[in-house]
């Protein structure tokens, strides 16, 4: 048998550029408190959120993705035509098919790129980053665009005291390309379907449609059992984060930045303590102004740290995403 030829592959990959899009409309806690019986103080102490952004009708999944992707490409100094793979992580693109990744690739000018969506909720950016790294190191891809984008406000019950203040909208993108030295550490990832009911869509679309036909017109929403999720995220995920550092051969002393999924400031604080990170480690706290944007939260937080100068190119950064599924993924990256 003639042995099959393998694609020429890069020795390693790294993130070349990151971009984000934050919807125009700022929704502060006072506005949230017109929808639910709560207070600014209650929301801040339970979540660390001061304000969030909710997308307007024209700020579609496509539009927000395009804005974030163009910024990431410009910062990476990569042309759209060089992108051969587009991965979009979203749970709020309301078409079952086609994937939004194809129209994003087309509008961007990444003609003919492999393009598909993934459903890994708040872990989506880390799942996508792991896939991009593997694709580049096997020669399947050369330059990958990964986008985390959500309009969670479309699936939020605005009268639910436990989630109305939490979920928000936005997009974050990263361009990942070949590198001589590793810029993306080994991923530590997994899932726990036994706990799927902890965060889920309230019902499938067909049930909502049947109920609506019977006069109970409504729309599915996201619901969450907060306390068990908090415990899982704060403690089980801290262990995953520690494993990701181990896998990359990085000790807490060698870590510069910690950018977990922006789920809740209290989770970030608990993880920081459990991981025993040194005080000098820069911690992403974008949630204060952005809310929980699921797959978009990590790239948005990284963009904020890089543009403010709190973090800089070449630094080591631990990222970890966790959410509905339950799914999780963490890795150490080198900042672009």
């Amino acid at each position, binding site marked *: 048998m003639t042995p099959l030829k393998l694609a020429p592959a890069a020795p390693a990959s790294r993130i070349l550029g990151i971009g984000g899009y934050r919807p125009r409309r700022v929704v502060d806690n006072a506005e949230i408190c017109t929808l639910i019986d709560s207070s600014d103080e209650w929301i801040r*102490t*339970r979540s660390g959120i001061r304000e969030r952004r909710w997308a307007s009708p024209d700020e579609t999944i496509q539009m927000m993705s395009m804005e974030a992707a163009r910024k990431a490409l410009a910062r990476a100094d990569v042309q759209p035509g060089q992108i051969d793979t587009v991965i979009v992580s979203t749970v709020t693109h309301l078409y079952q098919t086609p994937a939004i990744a194809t129209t994003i690739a087309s509008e961007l000018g990444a003609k003919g790129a492999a393009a598909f969506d993934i459903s890994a909720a708040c872990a989506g950016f880390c799942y996508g980053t792991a896939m991009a790294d593997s694709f580049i190191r096997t020669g399947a891809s050369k330059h990958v665009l990964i986008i985390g984008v959500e309009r969670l406000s479309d699936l939020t019950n605005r009268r639910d005291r436990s989630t109305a203040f939490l979920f928000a909208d936005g997009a974050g993108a990263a361009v990942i390309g070949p590198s001589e030295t590793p810029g993306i550490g080994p991923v530590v990832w997994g899932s726990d379907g036994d706990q799927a009911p902890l965060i889920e869509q309230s019902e499938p679309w067909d049930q909502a449609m049947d109920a609506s036909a019977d006069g109970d017109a409504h729309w599915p929403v996201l619901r969450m059992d*907060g*306390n*068990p999720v*908090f*415990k899982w995220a*704060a403690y089980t995920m801290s262990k995953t984060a520690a494993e990701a550092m181990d896998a990359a051969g990085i000790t807490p002393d060698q870590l510069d930045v910690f950018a977990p999924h922006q789920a809740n400031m*209290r989770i970030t604080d*608990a993880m920081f303590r459990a991981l025993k990170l040194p005080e000098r480690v820069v911690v992403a706290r974008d949630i204060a102004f952005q809310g929980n944007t699921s797959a978009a939260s990590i790239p948005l937080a990284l963009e904020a740290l890089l543009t403010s100068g709190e973090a800089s190119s070449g630094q080591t950064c631990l990222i970890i995403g966790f959410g509905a599924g339950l799914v999780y993924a963490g890795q150490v990256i080198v900042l672009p």
Partner: protein
Amino acid sequence: MATTEEIRADLAEIVNEVAGVPADDVQLDKSFADDLDVDSLSMVEIIYAAEEKFSVSIPDEEAKNLKTVGDAVAYIERAAS
């Protein structure tokens, strides 16, 4: 075997670390929520820290019945014995 007072004192230290409540205020008759102003997320952290500290398991369905410091100390005493 730790005494009730030793467990209370260790628990008080945890409550202090997690929620910033002065350890001396953490007495057996105090309610976590009403007297000590411990919110539900802090309670999750306290339960977790207590499980580690006392090497006991406190399932979620039991944890929500621990209203006072005395409830928690009694549960830990039973679970550890």
